[in-house]
């Protein structure tokens, strides 16, 4: 079963420039694939995604060859932590595609919003609208009034 939730902190302009910082970047000249390794940090607007390794996959150009100008998706592996102004999420892997603005986090996902935390197997967030959906053995811990949840 799944739980729909709004990740308001993540609602942002997906047209903003994406900045990727890492220790090293390896680009295969012929195939055009690019792999960032060594505490990689993807920053766009208020979203900060940290991971051990990020592999960049390019969109396919009209004739099928990889169009190295547009990034189709960034696959972050090796333990991913996502931080925004109000939320934080952790997972084993995450796939972020700037074109469509979707972020899919998989593998023991734990999302904390203010006092509440939701855990499950996959969390898909549409960054344009900030709508999120958690699937797979969802467990929610709600902070009752005392700690002044959001």
């Amino acid at each position, binding site marked *: 079963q799944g739980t729909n939730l709004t990740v308001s902190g993540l609602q942002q302009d997906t047209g903003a420039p994406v900045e990727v910082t890492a220790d090293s970047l*390896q*680009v*295969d000249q*012929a195939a055009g694939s690019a792999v960032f390794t060594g505490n990689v940090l993807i920053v766009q607007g208020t979203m900060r995604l940290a991971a051990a390794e990020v592999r960049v996959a390019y969109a396919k150009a009209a004739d099928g060859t990889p169009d*190295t100008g547009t990034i189709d998706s960034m696959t972050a592996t090796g333990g991913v932590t996502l931080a925004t102004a109000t939320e934080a999420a952790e997972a084993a892997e995450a796939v972020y595609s*700037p*074109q469509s603005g979707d972020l899919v986090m998989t593998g023991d996902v734990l999302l904390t919003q203010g006092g509440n935390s939701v855990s499950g197997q996959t969390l898909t967030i549409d960054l344009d609208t900030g709508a999120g959906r958690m699937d797979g053995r969802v467990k929610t811990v709600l902070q009752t009034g005392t700690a002044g949840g959001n």
Partner: protein
Amino acid sequence: MATHDNIHSRLVAWLKVILPLAALALLSTLFLVSRGIAPEDALPYSEVDVEELAREPRLTAPRYAGVTLDGAALSVTAEVARPDVGGAGQASATALTARLETPDGVTTDIAASDGQLDTAAGLLTLTGDVRIAASSGYAITTGALTAALDQTLLTSPGAVVATAPMGRIDAGAMQLTSQDGDYVLVFNGGVKLVYEPRN
């Protein structure tokens, strides 16, 4: 001398006096009044310093070409190359351009203001505003670059600024090397990419 009664003879008589005087005046402007001839600037000598040319052996427009072990064709041309006193097979050159054609079809053009070729150690060191343009869309500028002559290994120890098809990359160092068959451009020492999504 009989006086002449008709116009014609009087005219001819006067002309016999005036015309030689005019000729004398013309001739004098040619020799007496004309500007002095300065003998030393008669022949325009070229400014090339002949002593320097004789003293220092140099090659103009030298060309070095070779194929690396992994099959990449490297050709280097320069404006002027001077063999170094240091050792055999060493030369320093100015205004270098190098082209590396790797078997995977990518051509890398490198331009630098000056360089040091050491065939004994199999190394070409380019310094001074090095620009690398790869046909895969990467244009990289750096301060210094060393290129191995026997294998495909371009290393830039210093900071590198690259404009890639996907955006601008700033890195601490850069290396182009061949890893089991395919050619890999490695940026390390801290990499920052700025990508503008085009949606």
